[in-house]
């Protein structure tokens, strides 16, 4: 969406958005009677201040990277995947299910469980992709609906199929677990797990597939201009479905990270986890490129994690942190304003 901007602007716009968001957040804190310096200091120490918090922050970043990549991948190919939340949930439950259902050596079991998550997410996204390709049903509507189906279906599966009428499933065995005793010890019993490496690997795969392969060439082409792609002999429908499937696979992997890593089990969700929806903001802030998504996910992870400790350390309520995040997204979304200001600034400098 930043095509009309120069490379320099593409980098500066999110950075300035973040800075402005933090500034306005500081003003909101001041007006509400809190000390913004104390507040942001608490936020930083609560996310990066100690080993434990760093571990928790990295754990938080992991699903954000996957959700961000999922949304960004669809974005880049002209689709708006709001169903990341649902795809993440099915990926979660599928990975836990496979984790519990089999008894295999880790070298087979863990990849299999992770793959099950990816497949489930892909399958969940395949439906809206197919409907879009064949019947031109708008993917936004279908993916939103699929979110609800996913939520309640997963709850049903957890309660009646995977567990015996319980609120949570059993814990996945060690052979299917992403949990890392090494990291846990290193970070003073945080829930940090190996998922972060998979997330970073996923970002590299994202970059290579989209930018370096013929498939990515087609996907991007279809995203920019379906007519020209059709003219060039590309199969537009196939690419729409493929795009959704890959996007869903990223989301499903994010779910597997939660299911096999963060929690190690599945449970009844009273409401959406919100990670999938935050993924939209992560993708937007990250400019839909791999590195951008990682950085944006890191920012979100830090903000969300630091928000937990802010009330205790500085008295600033978590709601205010949510406001700061919302303001940042607002400034990214209104990037035109910033681009305009940048141009003005440049002119002034001359």
């Amino acid at each position: 969406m930043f095509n009309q901007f120069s490379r320099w602007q593409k980098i500066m716009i999110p950075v300035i958005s973040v800075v402005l968001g933090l500034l306005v957040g500081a003003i909101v804190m001041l007006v509400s009677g809190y000390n913004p310096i104390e507040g942001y200091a608490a936020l930083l120490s609560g996310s990066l201040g100690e080993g434990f918090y760093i571990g928790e922050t990295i754990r938080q970043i992991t699903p954000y990277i996957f959700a961000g990549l999922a949304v960004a991948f669809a974005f880049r190919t002209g689709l708006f995947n709001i169903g990341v939340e649902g795809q993440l949930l099915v990926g979660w439950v599928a990975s836990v299910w496979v984790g519990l259902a089999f008894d295999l050596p880790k070298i087979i079991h863990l990849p299999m469980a992770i793959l099950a998550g990816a497949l489930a997410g892909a399958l969940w996204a395949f439906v809206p992709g197919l409907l879009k390709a064949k019947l031109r049903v708008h993917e936004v509507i279908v993916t939103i609906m699929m979110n609800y189906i996913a939520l309640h279906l997963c709850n049903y599966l957890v309660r009646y199929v995977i567990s015996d009428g319980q609120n949570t499933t059993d814990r996945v065995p060690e052979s299917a677990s992403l949990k890392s005793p090494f990291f846990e010890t290193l970070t003073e019993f945080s829930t940090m797990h190996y998922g972060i490496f998979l997330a970073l690997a996923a970002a590299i795969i994202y970059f290579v597939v989209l930018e370096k392969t013929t498939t990515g060439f087609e996907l991007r082409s279809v995203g920019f201009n379906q007519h020209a792609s059709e003219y060039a002999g590309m199969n537009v429908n196939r690419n729409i479905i493929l795009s959704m499937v890959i996007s869903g696979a990223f989301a499903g992997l994010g779910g597997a990270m939660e299911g096999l890593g963060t929690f190690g089990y599945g449970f009844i969700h009273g409401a959406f986890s919100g990670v999938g929806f935050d993924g939209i903001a992560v993708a937007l802030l990250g400019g839909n490129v791999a590195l951008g998504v990682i950085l944006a996910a890191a920012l979100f992870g830090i903000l969300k994690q630091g928000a937990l400790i802010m009330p205790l350390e500085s008295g600033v309520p978590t709601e205010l942190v949510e406001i700061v995040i919302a303001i940042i997204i607002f400034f990214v979304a209104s990037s035109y304003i910033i681009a305009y200001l940048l141009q003005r600034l440049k002119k002034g400098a001359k």
Partner: protein
Amino acid sequence: MKKRKYGVALSMVLAAGTVLAACGSDEADTGTDEGSTGGEGAEETSEFKVAMVTDTGGVDDKSFNQSAWEGLQQFGADNGLEEGTDGYTYFQSNNDADYVTNMNTAVRNDFNLVFGIGFLLNQAITDVASQNPDTNFALVDDVSEGDNVASITFKEHEGSFLVGVAAAMATESDQIGFVGGVESDLINKFAAGFQAGVEAVNPDAEVQIEFAGDFNDAAGGQQIAASMYGSGIDVIYHAAGGTGNGVFTEAKNLKQQDPDRQVWVIGVDRDQWEEGQVGDDNVTLTSMVKRVDVAVQDISTRAMEGDFPGGEVIEYGIQEEGIAIAESQDNLSQEMLDEIANYQQQIVDGEIEVPSTLE
């Protein structure tokens, strides 16, 4: 420190607004309850620190998170504790993934006792408790294993039985509704007790049971309520947290359109009289009050006195004053109150065994 208190107060005002009056009456009430144990711990205060971790409903959920926090505040006030890292505090969870983090953060800040509010925190509390044997934990609404964990449960079926009696006497259509949050053993306890209470008084009345699938979906709750009231049901008992707010909204809308129409809501967990106020009318028939605050104060006091019931499951029922009918009784006739008192006595005496599961 002043600023901090002001901040919490402000956020409570912003978010919880209407509840303040209810808080006031609760606090006054618990003050007398705890009068006997309140004054003692003055010397230990600097030693003893207690925290609670909310579930995703948040501390201003007008339900058990809020009730627990009120209990903790009362405990703090009674024992001269300061709010914050050195006395008592709460950690709000915005996400399921926050439970473990918040638990750990509480432990790392050297709180002696950490409450987990709600069965959603079971796994988290079990994990963190096993990693931190020197800290005491208490789980509300579910049972966790572990020598340093006390499990607090309530005999919700008993209270639900009593409001079932009220519902059965209030209904004119003999059709009664029950809206649950997410189907679970816990919520089934409410439904089972309620159904038994209705049946005891009015065997002809029918109870329709629905689950919203969510504890935080007011819109969904309103939809279910709309269809229930539309089908002739005139009393709805909700055990659905935030979702239940939608039930109140629908009932109040109906009452506003037609003040002569009979629509009742039975509140849960706290005295939900305030939620039912519409003009001069009030649609809250009564509320099944679960005194999470009483339990929280009780366990905190025992822990402070070195009598922490680690590894035990403590059940709070009518007898333990953990379960009761709400104080606001303007919508209950004397006849109803008598009947309720009658049944209450029977339950306390063990003459009635209230079922805790749906058959």
